[in-house]
């Protein structure tokens, strides 16, 4: 027996812990390519990453040229015109794709003696592993290079400002996710946000005449105030600081740098409030453990828990699964923003064309808000459609134990998604009517029939892909879930195919000079899609049996 060794009582150093976490992430990545599925996944990720890198490099070139031109021609303030869109992309893109994107969940490391500082670093670092950050960093590198070429003596300052802007964006994105998760975890907040959102949609309609009324104002009068104000906001501050440095205004430069640091600090403080709660084991949930409930609330909740009236009279597995699926989605913060995005898209679409004269390109497109919004609504559901067992996680094995066929399971899930999509399309239609007037009858009919066609195509492929490429989804987390990269690529290819088939129908109707025939052509395609759907639904039972072990193993992962 060896001599008794003194226990290692020193606290683990956080640098060592971070290195260990980085190492384990790398090992997980390397080990993931041991299986064919993992290798395919890696290929898909590299493929997607490559295209985002191309996008980022193009952005870097543009930012570089822009930075060089603006700073070199004494217009440093104009750099803000590039940083604003970059900030919007950086923050909005992850939200818009929160149903598709995947981030590693860092909360699993909380079981170890990880210090708070280390946890913050891990959380921010894990959150930064996304496409928006990649594109953002490349654009900032380009901007730094362009500015440094234009004014070499300012190179250290340019680098400092770029880093500060990068850190600000990283922290802001994490802060937005963390607070949204926190707010959306509560039913009451979700209800309030839903009402606010509806008010926004209706409010935009009233803004329209106001904006038209303001059209007589000159551009400088409209913008002068905004330009002055934005100088003190994070995208304006680096530009303001550079312009001040170029002009030799030391105090203005110092004020801008300090203010930018203050913005970073403020965002960090707000993020820290959430992360600290997370660090101390806060679990986001609708229930507040131990909180007394009032009788009135209980009776309301009891009514909600009882079988909903809308489903009464419908017994059996299919409606039960559809109802369960809708309940899950109603409790899923991650679904809210993707579902809201199509309507926001309409609003942007409308505003983009507000000042467009008749015949203006954007104004001409405005009438197509309904089909575009409806198509986008289907797109945001593809993550669920192509991985519809992922939300069930370990519960998916219940379908193997219960006396049901998988065709019933998928029918129930497709029914739920179909209802959700129908509801979304109705909201988009109403929003389109409010914003832009009712779309033409033929366009409305073509959109509705086209949606049926597209949904059936997606369900057909999605059911098969859900069985062959499942991935667990945590519906309580924003942006920390997603389909497999391969699934995403296949889903993208299927959308391309669907769009091509719909495009053929449009082309034929256009060549015939009878666009009113378009709904009819799309209806023919929808009937064919229905046949395909029935065939693929029949295949699911066999496929479910042959893939059950891999599926259960994948969905039961901790």
């Amino acid at each position: 027996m060896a001599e008794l060794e003194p226990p290692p009582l020193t606290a683990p150093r956080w640098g060592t812990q971070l290195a260990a976490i980085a190492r384990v992430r790398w090992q997980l990545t390397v080990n993931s390519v041991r299986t064919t599925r993992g290798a395919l996944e890696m290929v898909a990720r590299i493929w997607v990453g490559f295209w985002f890198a191309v996008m980022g490099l193009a952005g870097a070139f543009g930012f570089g040229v822009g930075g060089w031109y603006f700073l070199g021609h004494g217009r440093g303030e104009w750099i803000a015109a590039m940083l604003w869109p970059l900030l919007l992309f950086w923050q909005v893109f992850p939200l818009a794709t929160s149903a598709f994107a995947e981030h590693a969940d860092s909360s699993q490391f909380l079981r170890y003696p990880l210090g708070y500082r280390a946890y913050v670093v891990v959380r921010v670092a894990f959150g930064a592993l996304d496409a928006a950050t990649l594109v953002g960093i490349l654009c900032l590198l380009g901007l730094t290079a362009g500015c440094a070429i234009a004014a070499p003596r300012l190179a250290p300052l340019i680098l400092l400002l770029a880093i500060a802007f990068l850190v600000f964006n990283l922290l802001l994105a994490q802060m937005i996710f963390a607070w949204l998760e926190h707010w959306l975890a509560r039913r009451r907040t979700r209800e309030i946000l839903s009402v606010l959102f509806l008010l926004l949609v209706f409010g935009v309609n009233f803004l329209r005449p106001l904006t038209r009324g303001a059209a007589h104002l000159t551009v400088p009068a409209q913008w002068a105030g905004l330009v002055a104000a934005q100088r003190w906001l994070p995208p304006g501050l680096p530009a303001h600081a550079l312009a001040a440095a170029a002009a030799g205004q030391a105090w203005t430069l110092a004020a801008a740098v300090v203010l930018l640091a203050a913005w970073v600090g403020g965002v960090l403080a707000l993020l820290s409030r959430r992360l600290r709660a997370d660090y101390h084991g806060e679990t986001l949930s609708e229930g507040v453990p131990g909180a007394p409930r009032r009788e009135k609330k209980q009776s309301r909740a009891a009514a909600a828990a009882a079988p909903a009236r809308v489903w009464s009279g419908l017994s059996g597995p299919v409606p039960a699964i559809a109802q369960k699926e809708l309940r899950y989605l109603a409790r899923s913060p991650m679904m809210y923003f993707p579902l809201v995005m199509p309507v926001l898209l309409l609003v942007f679409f409308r505003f983009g064309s507000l000042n467009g004269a008749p015949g203006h390109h954007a104004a001409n497109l405005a009438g197509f808000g309904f089909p575009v919004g409806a198509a986008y609504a289907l797109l945001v559901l593809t993550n669920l459609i192509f991985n519809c067992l992922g939300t069930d996680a370990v519960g998916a094995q219940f379908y193997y134990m219960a006396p049901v066929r998988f065709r019933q399971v998928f029918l129930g899930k497709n029914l739920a998604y179909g209802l959700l999509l129908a509801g979304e399309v109705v909201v988009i239609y109403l929003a389109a009517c409010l914003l832009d007037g009712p779309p033409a009858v033929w366009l409305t009919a073509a959109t509705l029939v086209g949606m049926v066609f597209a949904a059936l195509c997606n369900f057909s492929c999605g059911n098969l892909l859900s069985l062959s490429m499942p991935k667990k989804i945590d519906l309580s987390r924003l942006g920390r879930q997603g389909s497999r990269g391969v699934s995403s690529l296949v889903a993208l290819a299927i959308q391309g195919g669907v769009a091509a088939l719909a495009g053929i129908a449009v082309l034929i109707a256009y060549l015939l000079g009878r666009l009113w025939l378009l709904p009819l052509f799309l209806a023919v395609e929808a009937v064919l899609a229905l046949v395909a759907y029935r065939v693929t639904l029949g295949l699911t039972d066999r496929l479910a049996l042959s893939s059950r072990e891999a599926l259960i193993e994948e969905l039961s992962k901790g």
Partner: protein
Amino acid sequence: METPAVATSGLTRRFGQLAAVQDVDLQVAPGQFFGFLGPNGAGKSTTIKMLTGLLAPSAGSIRILGLDLMTHGVEVKRQIGVVPEGMALFGRLTGTEYLNFVGQMYGLDRPTAARRTGELLEFMQLADQRKKLITDYSHGMQKKLALAAAVIHGPRVLFLDEPFEGVDAVASVTLKAMLQSMIARGATIFLTSHVLEIVERLCSHVAIIDHGRLVAQGSLDELRQGVEARAAAAAGDASGTAVTAGERLTLEQIFLRIVGGTAASPAAAELSWLS
């Protein structure tokens, strides 16, 4: 001859080169409270997964209530209830919603499912938690809910994988009473547990699996007699495994003698730095 509730023949499951379960022939008569035991990694969970349709056997056959599981999967599943290892709950439903859902999946109409849900939640002492999401339940509460879900349709055969793990003593008494009343009404229960005292108290028949092979099967008395006979044959052995006269072996002792373990590993003495 009465049709066995559970019967396997040559049941085998291989994972690559490893045979996790090999040539297992089980016979569980209707109405039996059957304990399925084995050391860690012996093949218990693999076997129960195959019996409940979660895992395909590499070879052999499974008949539940006389029906082949491979060809009559849906009919078999309608008559069995399962509490699997991971419980397979839907975390973002409330207890009430989940039980209603399971009831409908097993073919109960909505009013029946709702009525049984209420009764089961009362019985399991979960009635005051009915509106809480399952993900917020404690482990023991989840176990109780999983058991409630497994019995909501009145199964004739119940498969339980470690049903008492994480369940407090009070709840444990409730669960045991319910299981025994099911046996009294003619149901068959197939249970795996590491808590041998519970198995000894509840089960009339036991099977022991070790290294994927069935090494013993029968009533407790039959197993005891077998061990005693073997011990008597080895009475002169210096290892000291002989049974002293009048001694009645516990299930733990029977288990240890059959699987060849000892009460304490000598390696434990080496880990003195733990103290």
